[in-house]
């Protein structure tokens, strides 16, 4: 009975403790969950907790239809704009809802509409000229052939080796034919020349007609239909992803159509689906990479001459082991057909850096794959299409570290666009919480800022981000405006520190990091930067201190190794002394004991005698 009571008491104690433990565990970790930082700008510390930080960027200007004066230019306001593109001082906005492109010239703080591109140059009139020229050329070619035939016929008649000599009438007739043909050729030549001059005067070229003819309807639509993206190459040619026209339009800087990329008639392109180019980038060699809707093979690559040369960078199929077993062995055929199959997902957006690597963002993933980094929401694709993004931080670049699971309002960060600054710092814009995340080339979070809302600096539907120098431009498709962010003193100091480190000016970099640290003591990168400089000055212990604060194990190990060497060299005599003592003392004691024992034994033997 007593034993039973004892057991019961122990059990109830255990149970009490068990109920207490999870409650206690909950308590200690619920700080700053879901990335709900109360601060506008923040970054994550080593433990993944959001740490408030000074603002790295502030809103310098918000550009909308009114400030651009678009009300006065035909009165159409920006509607559902999808993309931004910056080339030099030109800013292009794909005003998708209005089927047009707006070209804006930036001059410091001044943004002025340069032109509104609502159609490619070359009207139907131009095409009639082109067509005329084309027809006349063909006619001229036909006339040349006729002349040649007539010449041949005459030569045949006059051939002396003939069995039967031709009559004079026949020869006379052939000669007249030839003369007529020559005259017709002359006329056709003149007509063709005139047609060419006319066509040139109208500013169109023969390829326009060919492009036009290629289309079954007999005309290239010069108008856009839902242009979702725009890009400009080095030569100033403009590329438009004209989504609902199923084409990518390549125009020169005066908007003359150069080429039209339509659905590739290639076995690798599924012919049953329509070609809906959504996003595009152009590299230095004028190769065009197109992200198409409903295509999951990666980016369609077009050469400069418009030929399709395959897909690159297909998203790997992510197979969940449990899901696979469930689908393969437990579902019926009908269930399997009804449920989605294992297919790779499409990218959300793409961007090209100065070295020609394509940065792609991906928003379709399982949120459980994020922290293990199998989702890879940001990728850097090389020419083979492999992801070569460097990730040297504790956490992969996934945006917010904490979020409410399985919720449409919150959930993980989903990057709708990305832009790469000149020093390989990349900035991705998150549509879930309207935030911008900046990462350095090593994948370390520099800052995160932004929120949802209607005030300046908050977004409701951020879709695109671009940069001009260190300024960031963010397009909001619901507010239909562009927010211009410029770095604050704190933000530019971080950039300067990184740049001077990359340029090899380590001491200057350390000074800048020190200044950053004065503004934000929770900045691991700054500790690391100072640690590196201190290590270069051979202050190992100081470097260890800074690296420990930055939780930088590799560098700490490096500093510690040097410190350990120095310490051993300095204290070598003490070490030898201690080791010697440890070895000699027991030896001496043993010897003494034996001597004592021998003496005793000797005494004993004496006694016995």
């Amino acid at each position: 009975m007593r034993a039973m009571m004892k057991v019961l008491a122990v059990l109830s104690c255990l149970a009490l403790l068990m109920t207490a433990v999870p409650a206690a565990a909950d308590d200690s970790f619920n700080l700053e969950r879901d990335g709900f930082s109360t601060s506008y700008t923040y970054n994550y510390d080593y433990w993944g907790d959001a740490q408030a930080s000074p603002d790295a960027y502030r809103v310098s200007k918000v550009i909308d239809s009114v400030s651009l004066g678009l009300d006065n230019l035909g009165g159409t306001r920006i509607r559902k704009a999808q993309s931004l593109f910056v080339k030099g001082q030109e800013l292009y906005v794909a005003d998708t809802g209005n089927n047009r492109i707006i070209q804006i010239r930036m001059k410091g703080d001044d943004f002025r509409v340069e032109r509104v591109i609502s159609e490619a140059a070359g009207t139907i009139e131009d095409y009639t000229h082109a067509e005329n020229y084309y027809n006349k050329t063909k006619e001229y070619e036909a006339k040349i052939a006729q002349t040649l035939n007539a010449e041949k016929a005459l030569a045949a008649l006059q051939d002396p080796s003939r069995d039967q000599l031709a009559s004079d009438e026949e020869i006379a007739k052939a000669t007249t034919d030839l003369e007529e043909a020559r005259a017709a050729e002359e006329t056709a030549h003149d007509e063709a020349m005139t047609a060419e001059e006319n066509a040139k005067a109208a500013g169109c070229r023969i390829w326009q007609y060919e492009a036009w003819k290629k289309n079954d309807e007999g005309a290239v639509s010069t108008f856009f239909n839902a242009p979702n993206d725009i890009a400009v190459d080095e030569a100033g040619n403009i590329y438009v992803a004209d989504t609902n026209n199923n084409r990518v339009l390549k125009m020169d800087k005066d908007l003359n159509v150069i080429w039209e990329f339509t659905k590739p008639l290639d076995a690798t392109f599924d012919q049953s689906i329509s070609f809906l180019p959504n996003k595009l980038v152009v590299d230095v060699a004028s190769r065009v990479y197109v992200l198409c809707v409903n295509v999951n093979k990666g980016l369609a690559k077009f050469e400069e001459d418009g030929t399709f040369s395959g897909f690159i960078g297909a998203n790997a199929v992510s197979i969940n082991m449990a899901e696979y077993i469930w689908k393969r062995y437990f579902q019926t055929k009908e269930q399997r057909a009804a449920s989605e199959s294992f297919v790779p997902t499409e990218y959300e957006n793409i961007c090209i850096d100065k070295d020609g690597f394509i940065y792609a963002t991906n928003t379709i993933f399982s949120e459980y794959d994020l922290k293990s980094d199998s989702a890879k929401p940001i990728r850097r694709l090389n020419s083979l299409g492999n992801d070569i993004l460097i990730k040297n931080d504790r956490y992969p670049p996934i945006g917010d570290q904490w979020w409410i699971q399985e919720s449409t309002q919150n959930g993980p960060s989903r990057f709708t666009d990305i832009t790469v600054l000149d020093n390989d710092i990349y900035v991705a814009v998150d549509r879930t919480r309207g935030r911008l995340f900046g990462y350095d080339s090593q994948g370390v979070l520099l800052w995160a800022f932004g929120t949802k809302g209607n005030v300046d600096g908050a977004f409701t539907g951020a879709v695109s981000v671009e940069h001009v120098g260190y300024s960031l431009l963010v397009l909001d498709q619901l507010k239909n405006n562009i927010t211009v962010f410029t770095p604050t003193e704190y933000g530019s100091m971080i950039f300067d520190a990184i740049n001077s480190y990359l340029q090899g000016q380590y001491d200057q970099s350390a000074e800048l990091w020190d200044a950053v640290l004065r503004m934000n003591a929770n900045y691991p990168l700054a500790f690391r930067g100072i640690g590196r400089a201190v290590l270069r000055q051979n202050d190992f212990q100081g470097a260890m201190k800074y690296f420990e604060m930055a939780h930088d194990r590799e560098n700490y190990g490096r500093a510690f190794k040097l410190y350990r060497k120095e310490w051993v060299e300095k204290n070598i005599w003490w070490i030898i002394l201690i080791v010697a003592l440890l070895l000699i003392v027991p030896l001496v004691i043993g010897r003494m004991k034996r001597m004592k024992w021998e003496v005793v034994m000797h005494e004993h033997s004496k006694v016995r005698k």
Partner: protein
Amino acid sequence: MSIAKSVSKPAKAIKAESRKAWWKNYASSLRYSLYVITHPFDGFWDLVHEKKGSIAAAHTFLFLFLLTRVLKLMLTSFQFISAPIQHLNIFEQALSLLLPFLVLCLANWAMTTLFDGKGRFKDIYMAMCYALVPYVLLQLPMILVSNMLTFEEGSFYSVFLSVSVIWCVFLVFVGLMEIHDYGPGKTFIFLIVTVVGALVIIFLVLVFFSLLSDAIAYFISLYREIVYRLY
């Protein structure tokens, strides 16, 4: 008076002697752990059957094990461990090891009693505590060693950690085999059964407490109802 004095004196002496004997026994049972971990087959048999071990020593080892665990979290060089110290509660950490340990001992005892295991709960507890000794012996010095190593030399550190854990698992296995007088196959099966048993225990405890809290809530609401009616 004189009689009382003469009686009390030897009684005190006896008490002092027995205390001395207890300390001696305690010390020898502590020392015996070194024999157990190096000769587990003989060691565990004699531990129980020859009364070479003591519960006091077992308590000591368990305490040292928990202490090692906590010290490891606190003092290991940050290069080798990433414990969020600002979030940690050392009692929580200790309990998160102690409770599963006790529940597993209990489950093992409950299961093996039904299938002619020779060990009593006390024996099982004692053997399990002695099996934790390598963990303490290896990991405690490794805390110090970790502060003398760099990140690149980490393999040296991790090898010792794995050795300590593998050694402990081996000792647990052999210990249970010797205590219950089982064969290796049966011991292995009962290791799995023990885990299942532990889950059942946890389930029952949770059900018990949820029912208890419901019952308490019932009586509280009943009391409130009565109070409302009366006033």
